[in-house]
């Protein structure tokens, strides 16, 4: 698991799934389409990503395509960091 994935995983577990075992979540666990993240928690996640990784999201980029799994989140953050 990359640094981005593990940082985001810790954040999601602590913030949105308190008490849940880390084993219950892997890099492809759906977060938005499963309902783990609702609109408010997705906005919280985005602000965490922006602060933690020094990136900026446009409104239309805050979407399931970009944020549904740890893999997608990592890919999105990576492309923003290097794009």
């Amino acid at each position, binding site marked *: 698991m990359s640094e981005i994935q593990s940082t985001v995983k810790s954040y999601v577990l602590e913030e949105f799934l308190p008490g849940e075992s880390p084993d219950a979540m892997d890099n492809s666990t759906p977060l938005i389409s499963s309902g783990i993240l609702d*609109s408010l928690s997705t906005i919280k996640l985005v602000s965490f990503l922006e602060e933690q990784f020094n990136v900026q999201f446009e409104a239309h980029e805050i979407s399931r395509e970009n944020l549904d799994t740890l893999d997608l989140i990592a890919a999105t953050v990576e492309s923003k960091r290097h794009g």
Partner: protein
Amino acid sequence: MDFSFTPDQEALRDQILEFATRELTEGAIERDRGGVFPHDLWEKCGEMGLQGLPVPESHGGVGLDSLSTAIALEAFGYGCRDGGLAFAIGAHLLACVIPVWRHGSEELKERYLPGLSNGSLIAVNAITEPDSGSDAFAMKTRAVSVEGGFRIDGTKTFASNGPVADLAVVYAATDPDRGFLGGITAFLVEKGTPGFSVGQKFEKMGLRTAPLSELVFDDVFVPDDSVIGGVGGGGPIFNHSMEWERICLPAIHLGTMRHLLDRAVEQARTRKAFGQSIGKNQAISHRIADLKVRLEAARLLTYRSAERLETAGTVGLDASMTKLLVSESLVRSALDVVQIFGGYGYMDEYEVERILRDSIGSTIYSGTSEMQRNIIAGWLGL
């Protein structure tokens, strides 16, 4: 932490207060009775730049930072006695101008921001529908992609400025299954676009000089370039505009609360009963002490949130706390001042019952108090 204003902020506050007390104090009783929107005063406010306070000068605005915007709006609320006009300007600036400025394409900004900022255009924000208010993203209004643009179908309601607006910021579902995240798109629709019309106009308890109506979209074609900020971006764009609205409409309320305090002190010192001023009774003076405490606490939170609007990563929590505290304080204070005025407080010529009627909407629009508490609880991880 420095709580003092800069000389520029003091000058701005004084200038707006001088303008508002000179131009915006007369005629509110009659306009309230008749439900008349003051077009002429809207234009005067436009000449002062009120509708475009934070918009960059390059786009026709005043170019203020967010804290200075709040300071200017408090002065406006303090001097302006027409609560409907103040609300109409707040709704226009915060829910319409902000999304165009912060999320619109350069072309949209060039086309609309100068007119929106100088008072020559009036805008309306349309998200609420007859069957979805607090649950705004359960909207039924649809925008279907067609050659060169979209076709919008649906009915919006409780749209402030609806009957007088030249331009609407409209939220429609472009991918209904997705809802808030990626499913909603914000569009700009001009008055006169075929199929776009004003529906029922509402009579209401307060804010009677701010006209409010349904807006009907019957197979309205809008070109691709009328999309604000990308297809699917409507949810976060609306959220962002609500952050501004939940912080800067309360700034206007601070001014109203300050006016209420002045009126209460004056009445308590001059009205006599049982051979002494009514203010000599602690039942009255303690109520007024509470008005002062509420105002100062509300101002601190509002200014801190206003400053954070442009310095913090996200201000969703600050915005909900500010909106909740200030709106509930406003209603409480207005009710107290009517009580302090006794029978006179109930009569429209004393102009405090109108402030009470105008204030009640503040715990409903921009998200109800209950929804603010839900959001705050959500930020606390509950």
